């Protein structure tokens, strides 16, 4: 579904990605793990078109989407719940969700999708008319995931869904991610620092280190890898 070939991204003189290649198959959950600053978020930003690619290719569903404007990439079927959640603090929860469905014209279906979302994240329903800025961290995370889902993406990019969330909620959020993957058949590329959690739900995993892919293997294998255990699983 998604294939990245030899991708390079620079921020000024800083090389953020030094030629990474990865593939995400249809229906999979793929985890991208690694330390802070390894280039995980940059990879997602390059895919969704908000970071400039200096060289390499990003192919989605057979189409080259490298350096296309973000709204074109959303239209192609990729949506991105970004690092730091980026909830519109000045818009209500409902308006935030409606922005997620910005490119869709099927009003009735959007309403149904919002109802479905409330069944996954009941908390959001209680907050429907409140400004996004008034929501708690966990609620904002649910809103960010929900908002990204409302585009009805084929591929969902999730950046650190566990960041800043109470530990008890982290588990819930990961359960919901699996639910979304199974029930909506949404393919997911997941960036996480919580490697243990990420590998427990993923089909396949990539380990990033200073802008490069260090290792990749099926998630269960990766979780058993001695190097990974030591560096990222704290064992």
């Amino acid at each position, binding site marked *: 579904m998604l294939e990245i070939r030899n991708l390079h991204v620079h921020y000024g003189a800083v090389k953020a990605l030094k030629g990474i290649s990865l593939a995400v198959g249809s229906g999979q959950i793929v985890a991208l793990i690694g330390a802070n600053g390894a280039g995980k978020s940059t990879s997602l930003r390059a895919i969704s078109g908000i970071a400039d690619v200096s060289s390499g290719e990003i192919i989605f569903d057979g189409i080259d989407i490298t350096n296309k404007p973000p709204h074109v990439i959303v239209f192609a079927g990729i*949506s991105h719940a*970004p690092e730091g959640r980026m909830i519109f603090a000045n818009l209500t929860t409902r308006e935030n969700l409606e922005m997620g469905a910005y490119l869709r014209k099927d009003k009735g279906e959007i309403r149904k999708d919002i109802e479905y979302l409330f069944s996954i994240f009941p908390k959001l329903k209680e907050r429907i008319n409140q400004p996004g800025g008034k929501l708690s961290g966990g609620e904002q995370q649910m809103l960010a995931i929900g908002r990204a889902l409302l585009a009805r993406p084929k591929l969902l990019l999730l950046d650190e869904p566990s960041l800043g969330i109470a530990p008890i909620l982290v588990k819930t959020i990961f359960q919901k991610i699996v639910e979304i993957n199974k029930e909506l058949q949404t393919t997911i590329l997941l960036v996480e620092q919580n490697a243990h959690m990420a590998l427990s739900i993923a089909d396949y995993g990539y380990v990033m280190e200073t802008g490069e892919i260090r290792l990749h293997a099926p998630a269960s294998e990766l979780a058993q890898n001695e190097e990974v255990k030591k560096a990222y699983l704290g064992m």
Partner: protein
Amino acid sequence: MNQLLQQIINGISLGSIYALIALGYTMIYGILRFINFAHGDVFMIGAFVGFYSAPHISKLVGGSIIFSGILVMLLAMLICSLLGVTIEKFAYKPLRSRPKLTVLITAIGVSLFLEYGGQLIFGPDPKLFPTIVPSMAVVDTQNLVIGSNSIVAIVTAAILMLILRFIVFNTKMGAAMRAVSYNHQAAALMGININSIISFTFVLGSSLAAAAAILYSSVYPSINPLMGIFPGLKAFIAAVLGGIGNIYGAALGGLIIGLTETFVTGYLSPTYRDAISFGILILILLFKPSGIMGKFEAEKV
């Protein structure tokens, strides 16, 4: 008593015109975080569109002066929208990723270009704006004369502001505008085409400036290519006073500046009018730079 009422009506009339211009400053600031100093000159162009088109339009539609007045205003709004979008495309868009100061200086350049280009094309001498709104006294008693011009200005401005409010707070496009003004990147990730939202904002701002120009020139019918400078600066003060980026603030700021100016003119002396407006700007920048309705915004890192 009547004199007070007179000043209040005059003040609201002038204030609602300032408010219309201020809305353009504040919306463009909200989306792009810079002051479009050419905005007052877009206002001037609106007046000249009215000046040149009004005789033709009234000949074309014949008798109905109200209908032709509306047409003149719509034409000015259309042409200024195109002008605003063009300015953005050619002057500001190429500088989108540059420091804001660069764009600000460019805006001053565009402003001078329009002012002196206007002198070249329209001629520097003042022209008499044609009568679009029939000028008559609606109320005429002791010390109180309410002209139809003032009433038309107040009512038209109120209608336009209500339409704007509806667009910004009750439509998808308006929600997208607010989303873009909060965070460009997050808005882009929603599939919002940032460039079309920016163009749309320039359409709204410039057309309000054009409408303001028609109303203003009906009250003060001497027009010239430098006429946009002072109303532009006053509206800028109004936008800052109300809280730049806040559309309610712009409307409120416009009314406050309009009322203050007419009161100073009426009770003190016209000489102090401009000084007091700029005094307000200095005070607000010193003591409450976020304005009356603006919120303190921490610099994003």
